[in-house]
């Protein structure tokens, strides 16, 4: 059974094909994280400072994205696109859905980062003569960032892994490209292991970095 | 019946904190240990009931070698109660359950028996009204008294107190000291590590002054606190009084 590892029909072309898939995975991740973070920061700050009648409905809507499987969200969005006649590629649909999905989680991260800055600290800053703006840039953002960044890194990696579901609506990313090769050369364990390795290499170093940041910041508290 | 400490040495890594301590506490005695922070007095208490291992020397409790190879520490600890500086209440249990836990699970008493014991001990420390609440609802002083009741519920022969008032707000210190006074008046054998010099002077049969891991002076309070001989003792007392 291990003979397949040594006498494989897996070629350099196949590897290139998979790396191209990995490129698509990274592009999807990039757009999703960009859009999701921008929306998340806006929603998060709104949730942190707005009265309950803004906060509660916004929270409820975002909660929907966290309570429905991403796969279902993709299928619903993709069919809705056809219904209303928007001509987006599956890649674009994937980016948009993933960005909304990420924004729902990112909102909570930004909000808790914002709320982690004690009012007393802000009052102390203002009492020293810092302006409202300086208070935000010099005090609130640096503290909020420390709280939020490790979770944000974790979320980004989560979204990167979740891009694997996008092939269901027709995007050839890393997992789909390996599936294509599996169908042709019939060596699922070998090909999938390579796909897994690529995912791991894209995720693990960043996960480690996040863990280290978190630890260092906690020690300095 | 006594606690005998014989030339005990204790180090954390290369840092020796107890450097050859010898003393005996007889049944019925109250011995206070005073001294600056880091002088090794708390560590010595932990060694007496085997929560910390020792490097050399011997500690005998009623003739049993605490750090001996065949010693059943769990059994030995039943007769040595200890109360910590941080009271260490079990937050997931009510006050009553905190005190009942060990009698039930360690001594194997029935629920009714354990409850009777707990109610009695809690009454003695003045917490009868609080038995149904969780520790988080108590003040520090109340939690500390609960910790005393918890230790007493095992009917120990000896009680060790490790700076039990130093984490408390000043106005809460009195209620805890009152509880300890009550215990000593009932003849409980106690070793009290404390910063409360006046209290030590009042309740102790003997006072030991610890300095840099050694006993510098030991004797009746009137002597050690009232009329100290060693220059270190004099300096220390000046700094705290």
């Amino acid at each position, binding site marked *: *059974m291990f003979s397949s590892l040594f006498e494989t029909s897996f070629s350099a072309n196949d590897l290139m094909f998979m790396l191209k898939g990995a490129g698509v995975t990274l592009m999807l991740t990039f757009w999703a994280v960009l859009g999701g973070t921008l929306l998340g920061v806006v929603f998060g700050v709104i949730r942190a400072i707005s009265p309950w009648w803004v906060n509660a409905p916004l929270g409820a809507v975002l909660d*929907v994205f*966290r*309570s429905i*499987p*991403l*796969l*279902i*969200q993709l*299928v*619903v969005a*993709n*069919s809705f696109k056809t*219904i*209303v*006649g928007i001509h987006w590629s599956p890649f674009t649909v994937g980016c948009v859905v993933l960005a909304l999905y990420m924004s729902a989680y990112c909102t909570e991260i930004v909000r808790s980062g914002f709320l982690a800055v004690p009012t007393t600290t802000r009052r102390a800053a203002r009492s020293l003569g810092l302006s409202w703006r300086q208070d935000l840039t010099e005090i609130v953002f640096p503290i909020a960032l420390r709280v939020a960044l490790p979770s944000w890194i974790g979320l980004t*990696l989560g979204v990167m*892994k979740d*891009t*694997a*579901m996008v092939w*269901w609506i027709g995007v050839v990313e890393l*997992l789909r490209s390996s*599936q294509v090769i599996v169908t042709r050369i019939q*060596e*699922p*364990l*070998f090909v*999938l*292991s390579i796909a*897994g390795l690529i*995912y*791991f290499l894209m*995720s*693990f170093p960043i996960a480690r970095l996040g863990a280290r940041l978190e630890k260092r910041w906690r020690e300095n508290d | 019946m006594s606690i005998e400490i014989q030339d005990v040495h204790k180090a954390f890594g290369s840092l020796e904190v107890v450097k050859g301590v010898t003393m005996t506490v007889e049944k019925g005695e109250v011995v206070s240990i005073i001294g600056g922070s880091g002088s090794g007095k708390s560590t010595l208490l932990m060694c007496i*009931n085997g*929560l910390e291992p020792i490097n050399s020397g011997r500690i005998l409790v009623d003739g049993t070698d605490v750090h001996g190879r065949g010693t059943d520490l*769990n059994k030995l*600890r*039943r007769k040595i*109660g*200890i109360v*910590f500086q*941080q009271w*260490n209440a*079990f*937050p*997931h*249990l009510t006050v009553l359950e905190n005190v009942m*836990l060990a009698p039930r*699970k*360690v*001594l194997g008493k029935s629920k009714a028996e354990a409850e009777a014991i707990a109610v009695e001990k809690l009454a003695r420390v003045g917490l009868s009204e609080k038995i149904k609440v*969780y*520790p*988080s609802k108590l003040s520090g002083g109340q939690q500390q008294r609960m*910790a005393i009741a*918890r*230790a007493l519920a*095992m009917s120990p022969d000896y009680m060790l107190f490790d700076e039990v008032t130093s984490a408390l707000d000043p106005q809460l210190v009195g209620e805890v000291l009152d509880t300890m006074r009550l215990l000593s008046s009932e003849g409980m054998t106690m070793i009290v590590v404390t910063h409360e010099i006046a209290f030590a002077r009042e309740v102790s049969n003997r006072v030991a002054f610890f300095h840099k891991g050694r006993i510098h002076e030991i004797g009746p309070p009137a002597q050690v606190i009232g009329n100290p001989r060693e220059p270190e003792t004099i300096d220390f007392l000046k700094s705290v009084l």
Partner: protein
Amino acid sequence: MNYTFHWLPAFRALPEMLWGALVTLEIAVLSMVLGVLFAVLLAVGASSQYRIFRAAAVSWVELARNTPALFQIYMAYFGLGSLGIHLDSFVALLAGITFNNAGYLAETFRGGLRAVPQTQVRAARSLGMGQIQAFRLVVMPQMFRIVFYPLTNQMVWAILMTSLGVIVGLNNDLTGVTQEYNVRSFRTFEYFALAAVIYYLLAKFVTVSARLMAWRLFRY
């Protein structure tokens, strides 16, 4: 937009979809129970004095956390086939999600264990409790409270992950049933929108009952 929505066929499919939801819940619950068991083993293994156990536990945790859940399910379904282990889609899905759950929960448990102060053990031991007694009576109940919220989160995750079964051919869970209807009628939007509502209600059901449970369990 010249599309007319046809909701009636979707509602006719509702009973069967609800049966599918039950299968979904079944897989999620099983994967959590198994996941918790493996997670405890992993947490113990990660602090073992034997290198081989440590290495195995760490690899499991890192693989589970650094590759997609869908990849893990694929491995169970297609990959293991190369080794002569052929799992049907139900078992493969269950295995994949369990693997994933265990990896995340192992870290949760380790964090929970660290969060109970060592002084609690000390206090318990000073009352004459043995190591195991102290853990069972004092550490574990406190740890349970700390991990309870992450545990419910993971349960919601497990429900969401079950939807991936359709990709390895599962056809009797909520997504599987929905897809069967979809293939027959191509009313994709209606069927999947209805499925989305059911998933939402399932997830809410879990979070609300967890909140009620926490309220009853943790009075302190």
